[in-house]
């Protein structure tokens, strides 16, 4: 049975300096409120894992929480660069950032192997320089056809954090819409935190094959309405594209960024996200 608790308590309990932390949500349900909490609690030397770092890791990297980034596409979707990520890689600001870089197909199948607790994933790789710069691209030979496939190690985070639409009172969690790698990331992790828009009595009338994480797969649940802002929660509120555009200016400059983090993260709290919560009809 997961622990229903405050986001502060959940992060304090589960996320430690030096951890491998995955905050997933493929453009949808990105756990921004939890990311802010990690910044507020001053975590350091994290290995941050995420297919698409998006603004959430731009914020964590710029705030100095990360020693390493494991990822497969690091841009501001539809807008351009992640300036804090670039500044860390290009100028080691606020510190050096090691990169472990995959393609989407490789990282997605690595999560899949992690969820199955297999040690590696095999897939049909392709020639290119990624395998040259990432020593985790190796090879296995099919024992039936002799074909060489690419192998990557299973992704096994210490902690996975996701945002979901709802939990029921038993602590089961439902994710609806674009489900990304959230289920795999939770099942692959040693422990997990889920922030949710709301708690409901039951998932009545839900589809037979909905994406649901049983309560015994989740360590802690924190109710944080609006917690995916400025990304979105399908059925609740839409993506705030204006913020994604505005972030380009905020993050381009170190001082503007610091001021933004100070005002909107350090001197704020999870409750601030409630202003963005909504439930679409």
């Amino acid at each position: 049975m997961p622990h229903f608790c405050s986001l502060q308590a959940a992060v304090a309990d589960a996320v430690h300096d030096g951890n491998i932390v995955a905050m997933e949500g493929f453009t949808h349900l990105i756990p921004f409120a939890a990311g802010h909490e990690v910044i507020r609690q001053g975590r350091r030397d994290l290995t941050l894992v995420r297919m698409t770092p998006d603004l959430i890791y731009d914020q964590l990297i710029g705030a100095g929480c990360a020693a390493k980034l494991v990822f497969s596409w690091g841009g501001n979707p539809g807008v351009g660069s992640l300036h804090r990520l670039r500044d860390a890689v290009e100028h080691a600001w606020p510190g050096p950032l090691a990169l472990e870089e995959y393609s989407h197909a490789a990282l997605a199948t690595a999560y899949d192997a992690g969820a199955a607790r297999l040690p590696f994933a095999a897939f049909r790789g392709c020639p290119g320089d990624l395998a040259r710069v990432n020593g985790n691209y190796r090879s296995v030979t099919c024992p039936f056809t002799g074909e060489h496939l690419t192998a990557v190690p299973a992704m096994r985070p210490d902690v996975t954090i996701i945002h979901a639409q709802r939990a029921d009172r038993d602590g089961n969690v439902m994710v609806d819409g674009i489900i990304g790698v959230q289920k795999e990331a939770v099942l692959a992790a040693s422990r997990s935190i889920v922030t949710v828009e709301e708690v409901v009595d039951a998932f009545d009338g839900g589809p037979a094959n909905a994406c649901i994480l049983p309560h015994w797969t989740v360590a802690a649940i924190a109710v944080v309405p609006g917690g995916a802002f400025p990304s979105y929660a399908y059925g609740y509120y839409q993506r705030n594209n204006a913020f994604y555009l505005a972030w380009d200016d905020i993050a381009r400059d170190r001082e503007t960024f610091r001021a933004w983090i100070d005002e909107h993260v350090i001197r704020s709290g999870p409750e601030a996200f409630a202003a963005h919560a909504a439930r679409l009809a």
Partner: protein
Amino acid sequence: MLRGSLDMAYTPDELMTVAAARCVGNDDVCFVGIGLPSAACNLARLTHAPGITLIYESGTIGARPSVLPLSIGDGELCATALTTVSVPEFFRYWLQSGRITVGFLGAAQIDRFANINTTVIGSYASPAVRLPGAGGAPEMAAACQRIFIVMPHSKRAFVEQLDFLTSFGHGEGGNHRARLGISTSGPAKVITDLCVMEPHPVTRELTVTSLHPGTTQEQVEESTGWRIGFAEDVAETPAPSARELEVLRRVRLETEHAHKGKEFA
């Protein structure tokens, strides 16, 4: 800059988009990226290819967005899709299984064999510019039956030597793909704001097969970082039709309106 006669004026970007849209047909299953590819594929869907299947790497299969998405995971894609699958399933069952007939790619750099770089400018260890990286592109370039590359023409982008080979096109040319056991045909066209290039049937080196209205061979040569070849019969790219322009502009207008959203307080 607008080109064409007064009543049919269009921008180079519009011509690129329309030319890309014309590459796909009603029975195609397209892997769609954000930006110009998304505009092109949805233009095709709203004009000559109503039955086309659009798939975004967020796992939305058969999406029919009424406005163009800003990200590959916009709610509009899921709401209009036939179904939405997990990202691991998308890559394993749908892309890498070879079911997708067409993929569109863009790039920061491309070479004469249509290999592309979306990773870094400069060295990998200490890059001058850190680009977003691979995303779905490498396996898309390998697994889609045909690849179309759409990008503006410039000497900085069309280079003699890539800084990083993110996605494999025709490798070192000739039958390099086949030699590596890749069964798909790879980049079929490169569409720029100046021309359309296709790989030479034997050498697989990109060759200009069509110049956009008003473009000269010299302009293309000056914008290409290697000595670009031209086909024997270089055609003129057909201008966008009134219907294509009308639909494209309407969709873009509606998109702009929808994406303004509420301002960030």
